[in-house]
């Protein structure tokens, strides 16, 4: 086959056609170390230059939205962990927020603080994996081990908090499952002291490394208007210079009581909205998460961590759409109740879903090797796309 094609090409060239090139179709994935889960791309390339990369998803579809209709309101919480197992806390939180809004439940103040502390630790957890694997995808292995080392301390903290290291099942409708263990906040503070210094170390090691910057700067530039049109959220949106964060602009929980900044991309290494900007926003956000954690630990009040919620939970009929700022940005939960013990419909609009849909648009004219950098810079987590 290949040889025959070659002969045709020579013949065409000899007949005065000049050099004849044909587009090549490449298959990347579903099993590929840089796709962060099971995810496939169909790449049409002219030599090393891509004409398009078309994502093919669904390999991790576990019909979580259908499961919601079968397992009841409380029973669905462990499943939400699996929506985005890299940042499971936010999925717990989103589901709890939606159910509480439908039923009009106020949760105790201490529970709100527990949630925010868990959320922000989870943000560090997720961003560390994102920036670490990003360096690895590009070819620098050492930074990944640094990131994973720090993440390991977080795993230990989570394990002490809720018994699990990845799929936490920590939050409940009406509060959180357990209060913070005795002496736990001190351990978090020790971790933060260590970790804040580590962010600087990590920046020295990789963020401003010449090769790393060259691989990311000016690659896959997304303008602010495009970001909004494709509904990019979180660090992907802020990387394009849009200063919007659900925690500040549409606040939930106790975020209005906390003081933090919202880092945005500045185009410091190339063009505003390039892959480097999306990366550096995550690094800056980790510093802000540390700041939020210190305040929350200082301000946390005493009291119960669960509101009174019926075991046979039946929120009144109606629908609601709640959003929260997950590690991958604005996560939307559209939940419909028909007044029974089972949710009528649950739709989860995740950050990775919006992120992957822009790849076909930005992949034009990139090098094939840039595709992994783009996937990493958009922080795509395949289970969150497929649900």
């Amino acid at each position, binding site marked *: 086959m290949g040889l025959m094609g070659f002969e045709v090409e020579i013949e065409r060239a000899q007949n005065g056609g000049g050099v004849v090139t044909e587009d090549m179709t490449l298959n990347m994935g579903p099993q590929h170390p840089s796709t962060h889960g099971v995810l496939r791309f169909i790449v049409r390339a002219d030599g090393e230059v891509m004409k398009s990369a078309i994502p093919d*998803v*669904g390999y991790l*579809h576990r*019909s979580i*939205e*259908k499961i919601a209709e079968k397992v009841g309101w409380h029973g669905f919480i462990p499943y939400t962990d699996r929506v985005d197992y890299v940042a499971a806390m936010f999925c717990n939180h989103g589901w709890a927020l939606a159910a509480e809004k439908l039923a009009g439940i106020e949760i105790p103040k201490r529970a709100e603080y527990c949630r925010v502390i868990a959320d922000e630790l989870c943000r560090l957890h997720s961003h560390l994996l994102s920036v670490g694997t990003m360096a690895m995808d590009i070819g620098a292995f050492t930074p990944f081990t640094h990131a994973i080392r720090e993440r390991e301390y977080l795993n230990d903290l989570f394990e002490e908090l809720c018994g699990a290291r990845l799929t936490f099942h920590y939050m409940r409708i009406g509060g959180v499952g357990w209060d913070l263990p005795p002496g736990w906040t001190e351990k978090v503070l020790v971790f933060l002291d260590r970790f804040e210094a580590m962010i600087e170390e990590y920046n020295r090691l990789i963020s401003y490394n010449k090769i790393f910057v060259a691989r990311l700067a000016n690659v896959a530039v997304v303008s602010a*208007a*495009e970001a*909004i*049109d*494709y*509904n990019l959220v979180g660090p992907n949106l802020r990387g394009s210079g*849009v200063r*919007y964060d659900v925690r500040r*602009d*549409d606040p939930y929980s106790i975020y209005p009581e906390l003081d933090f900044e919202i880092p945005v991309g500045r185009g410091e290494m190339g063009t505003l909205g390039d892959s480097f900007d999306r990366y550096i926003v995550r690094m800056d956000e980790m510093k802000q998460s540390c700041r939020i954690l210190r305040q929350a630990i200082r301000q946390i009040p005493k009291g119960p961590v669960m509101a009174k919620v019926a075991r046979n939970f039946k929120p009144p009929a*109606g*629908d*609601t*759409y709640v*959003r929260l700022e997950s590690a991958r940005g*604005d996560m*939307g939960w*559209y939940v*419909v109740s028909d007044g029974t013990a089972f949710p*009528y*419909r649950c*739709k989860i*609009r995740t950050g990775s*879903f*919006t992120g*992957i*849909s*822009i790849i076909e*648009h930005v992949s034009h004219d990139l090098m094939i090797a840039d595709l992994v950098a783009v996937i990493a810079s958009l922080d795509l987590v395949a289970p969150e796309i*497929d*649900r």
Partner: protein
Amino acid sequence: MGCDAAQIHARLVERFGDAIGAPTGQGRDTALAVAPERIAEVARFLRDDSDLAFDCLSNLSGVDYPKLGCIQVVYHLFSYRYRHWIVLKANAQRDDPVVPTVSGIWSHADWQEREVFDLLGVRFPGHPDLRRLLMPEDWPGHPLRKDFVEPEEYHGISTSRESLLKA
């Protein structure tokens, strides 16, 4: 300055007349029913009108209501410029659900409509590439429909198994 749902409703009624239903729900979740065949026009107006400027389709989902004989396509719209919200609901006939695409208005709708087509079987005429998104191409039926029955096997692979705990 942002508009509240009542103002948005008034603007739409002024422009589209009885294609727009009365507002239902409260606060952020206030929804307007829109005649499904006119959804694309309404969406374009909401995006392009300088006082409304809904530049972002935050969410698009479908809900099956067999008792009402319809599949409802729900649009959650947000304006980054004015920070206001509106929810649109289009009830498509359940036996042949058709709703014009809004993918030319918000690029985000492209994948969302593919998902709704895949899981609920709503067709979106005008969509550039309406293929299944999450389920395999040859999957029978649309799983998020309430009357969906899971097939017993798929290409010879059983979809259930006996309980390991059975005595």
